[in-house]
């Protein structure tokens, strides 16, 4: 299939305006004749549902949470980027665009990124109007900070709770439309399939998580805003319920899945403390502004530390290796996320890791504490230090934090064109769920921006173009495609309940996570990936033979829910491995050990891999077909990232 991204022509700065003019409009009186389903009510979904309802469409919004306010977006800490240039420090739409394309290691689509930078400014206006309490200066104007190594201060924030405040803003807009009756909200409803009629998305099948009732819902278009799939690794900074099911079900119905191997590993997370570990906690990136990363110079010393024979504070200055400062004198501790993560892994692989497991490095604040005092540090990072102490029982004012990289974000996702439409007409994907605008690596504070850009400012226009070409007559809810999809959903559930084996869904999930982390995590090799593929296939087979789920469908059954999500992760995992194997280069979050220079830096291959890999499902246990969307860079010059 030829992948047409439908990028409008003309100069990059004019594409979006031109496109908005060219898209078809739905006559205001006709809008109420169209039904739109929005699955997911995080930032991307709540903003889309509210905005579409305001325009007059009938919206049905679904979430498996008990309230839209619980979506994973709530946990975002650091902030949201926007090219407002309020600080007069040289920011502009073009610079944000440029930074994002470069930061993504030249694997993103220029036109989408430019639009993202353009609408970023409207997002902040919208949120403030909703009553989002962003941080302010004493003069009453909005405050900004620089984030994730950016050279300008363009990040808006609400203390360490930016995601919470933005989501509550979008949730309030959504709630208002619920009150008006323009949005019908279905909470604790999990989408388990999309319904396709004559090649177009026309509805979904859901399960009510409290009663187990399986429902059919028809609409003229379906928007998936169901978040990322980082939890394929079992342990990640994502909320426990984040999963790939909605996207994966759509994929199996014909939506291509793009760049699945592009995952972001965040360098500063609290390390694993035991087998019981259920998730990992992020320590904000901002800590690297003042913390210094080190490990002991020798393996012997690291061993004694791990054995508890010496204390970290006993290690003399000259016995510490500040490896980021040593290797990257210009950027030091502020190198990008992928570089920082890989280096930490390398130290641990060398046997110089710390903590009882040896899978951690130190992040040391003693110098800044000396410089500005514990009070000063507390003002900057008090809440993070408190959280760290709560979890680890160690006081970071008195000894360095232990940190280790963890899976954080997935750049891959459903392939979408410029209109955010997947390869299934009428099916759209927004937010982290799509393969998005971040290429092979996402910059800090850009996910919130993208989710809200998609929901508030892009989808309301682009979906109209599609609906305008659709007759304003009700969708045939009696079409056999609904019954077929429902039957398939029921059959799958019965299967889960009837295997009656010995291993729990979590057990399989952990095993999968282990394979993914080991072979498809921070560093990948062709050999390792091939091995992982076999292991995943084996595990998947065992899953379908030896799964244990108790209880019934017609009841709140959290084990059954998990089983369905793990089943999909077991398929996605294999595709990620295939994608990583196919991409014979290192770029952004994808590091293939075979492709590095003498200094260990990533070697990108623009000649052969400057494309989006969009995978097409070909049937159960069949290899997927690779489709390529070539990436053309007309505005940004491709160059090699260097942080020395």
């Amino acid at each position, binding site marked *: 299939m030829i992948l047409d991204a439908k990028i409008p022509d003309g100069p990059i700065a004019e594409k979006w305006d031109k496109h908005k003019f060219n898209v078809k409009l739905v006559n205001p009186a006709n809008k109420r004749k169209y039904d739109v389903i929005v699955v997911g009510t995080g930032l991307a979904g709540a903003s889309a549902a509210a905005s579409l309802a305001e325009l007059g469409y009938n919206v049905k919004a679904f979430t498996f949470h008990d*309230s839209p306010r619980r979506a994973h977006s709530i946990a975002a800490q650091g902030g949201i980027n926007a090219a407002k240039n309020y600080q007069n420090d040289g920011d502009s739409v073009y610079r944000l665009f440029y930074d994002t394309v470069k930061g993504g290691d030249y694997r993103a689509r220029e036109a989408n990124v430019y639009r993202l930078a353009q609408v970023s400014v409207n997002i902040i206006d919208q949120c*403030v109007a*909703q009553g989002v309490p962003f941080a302010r200066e004493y003069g009453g*104007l909005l405050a900004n900070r620089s984030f994730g190594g950016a050279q300008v201060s363009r990040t808006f924030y*609400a203390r360490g709770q930016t995601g919470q405040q933005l989501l509550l803003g979008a949730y309030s807009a959504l709630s*208002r439309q619920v009150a008006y009756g323009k949005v019908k909200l279905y909470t604790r409803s999990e989408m388990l399939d999309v319904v396709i009629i004559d090649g177009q998305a026309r509805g979904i099948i859901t399960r009510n998580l409290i009663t187990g009732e399986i429902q059919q819902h028809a609409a003229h278009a379906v928007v998936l805003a169901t978040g990322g799939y980082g939890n394929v690794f079992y342990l990640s900074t994502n909320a426990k319920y984040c999963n790939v099911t909605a996207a994966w079900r759509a994929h199996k119905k014909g939506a291509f899945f793009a760049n699945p191997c592009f995952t972001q590993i965040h360098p500063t997370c609290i390390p694993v403390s035991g087998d019981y570990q259920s998730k990992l906690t992020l320590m904000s990136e901002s800590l690297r502004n003042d913390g210094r990363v080190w490990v002991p110079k020798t393996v012997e010393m690291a061993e004694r530390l791990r054995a508890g024979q010496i204390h970290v504070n006993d290690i003399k200055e000259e016995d510490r290796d500040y490896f980021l400062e040593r290797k990257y004198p210009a950027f030091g501790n502020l190198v990008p996320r992928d570089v920082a993560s890989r280096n930490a892994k390398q130290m641990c692989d060398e046997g110089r890791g710390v903590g009882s497991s040896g899978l951690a490095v130190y992040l040391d604040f003693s110098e800044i504490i000396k410089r500005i005092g514990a009070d000063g540090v507390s003002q900057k990072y008090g809440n993070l230090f408190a959280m760290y102490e*709560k979890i*680890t029982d160690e006081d970071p004012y008195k000894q360095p934090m232990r940190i280790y990289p963890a899976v954080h974000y997935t750049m891959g996702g459903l392939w979408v064109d410029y209109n955010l439409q997947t390869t299934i007409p009428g099916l759209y994907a927004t937010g982290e769920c799509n393969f998005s605008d971040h290429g092979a690596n996402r910059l800090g504070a850009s996910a919130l921006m993208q989710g809200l850009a998609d929901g508030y400012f892009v989808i309301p226009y682009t979906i109209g173009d599609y609906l305008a070409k659709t007759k304003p007559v009700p969708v045939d809810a009696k079409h056999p495609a609904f019954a077929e999809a429902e039957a398939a959903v029921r059959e799958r559930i019965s299967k889960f309940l009837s295997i009656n084996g010995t291993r729990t869904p979590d057990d399989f999930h952990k095993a999968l996570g282990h394979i993914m982390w080991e072979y498809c995590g921070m560093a990948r090799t062709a050999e390792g990936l091939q091995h992982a593929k076999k292991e995943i296939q084996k595990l998947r087979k065992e899953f379908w033979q030896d799964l244990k789920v108790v209880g019934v469908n017609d009841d709140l059954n959290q084990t059954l829910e998990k089983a369905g999500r793990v089943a999909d992760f077991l398929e996605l995992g294999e595709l990620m491995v295939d994608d990583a194997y196919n991409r014979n280069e290192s770029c952004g979050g994808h590091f293939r050990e075979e492709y590095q220079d003498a200094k260990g830096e990533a070697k990108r291959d623009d000649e052969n891999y400057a494309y989006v890999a969009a995978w097409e499902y070909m049937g159960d246990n069949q290899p997927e077909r690779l489709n390529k969307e070539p990436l053309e860079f007309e505005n940004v010059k491709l160059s090699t990232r260097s942080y020395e």
Partner: protein
Amino acid sequence: MAGSNPNAKPMNLTLKVWRQQNRNTQGNIVDYQVRDISPDMSFLEMLDVLNEDLLRKGDEPVAFDHDCREGICGSCNLFINGRAHGPEPGTTTCQLHMRKFSDGDTITIEPWRAEAFPVNKDLSVDRSAFDRIIQAGGYVSVNTGGVPDANEIPIPKSIADQAFDAATCIGCGACVAACKNASAMLFVSAKVSQLALLPQGQVERKTRVENMIAQMDKEGFGACTNIGSCAAECPVGISLENIAILNREFLAAKATSNNLA
């Protein structure tokens, strides 16, 4: 694998857990033993261990709500040894760690108890009443687009900070669970004062407070008698001052005649 503290000794505990099949059935406390619990585990990880054990034995795991496990989503909601979110102040259930307990302890775990929060199953309750209160007026009525530039209206930092403090409510419902009247005043007041403090919230200031309070009453939450257990158990420190603000807002709204609805 050992935890971060090599000297931490594993614990054996007795759990007394509320089990209830669904909304229409009666529930009861069931005793369980959990062994080798690391003090570094979170409370929910301890329950994960219990649930994996139960499942392997073919018993139904205990249903409970959770998601972020970072104290921000407001999903987790356990009543532990008679206290909402357990013994540690300023902490959600998911951020409570087992080092706060001792080997041999008996821990009672119950769901939030309030007429407006019916039990779904075991420890999971239905808090959709909170959503309906927000739907009644917890917003500023602006559509997407056509809003002024974000810096057009300066807001004094002290006001912005105060609004932020109120806005950090995570909607967990501990305030209701902790209150002997099962009042939702702290939750409602947090949203009312956030928006009453900000210039953007002025236009609908009066109708908002009236509508939200009317909805709160309709949902079956109890009256506020100013005891303060809500704020004492609130994991994010929403202050009682918000209730004072709410009362002022409500009186002011009632006192004027031009408010509709």
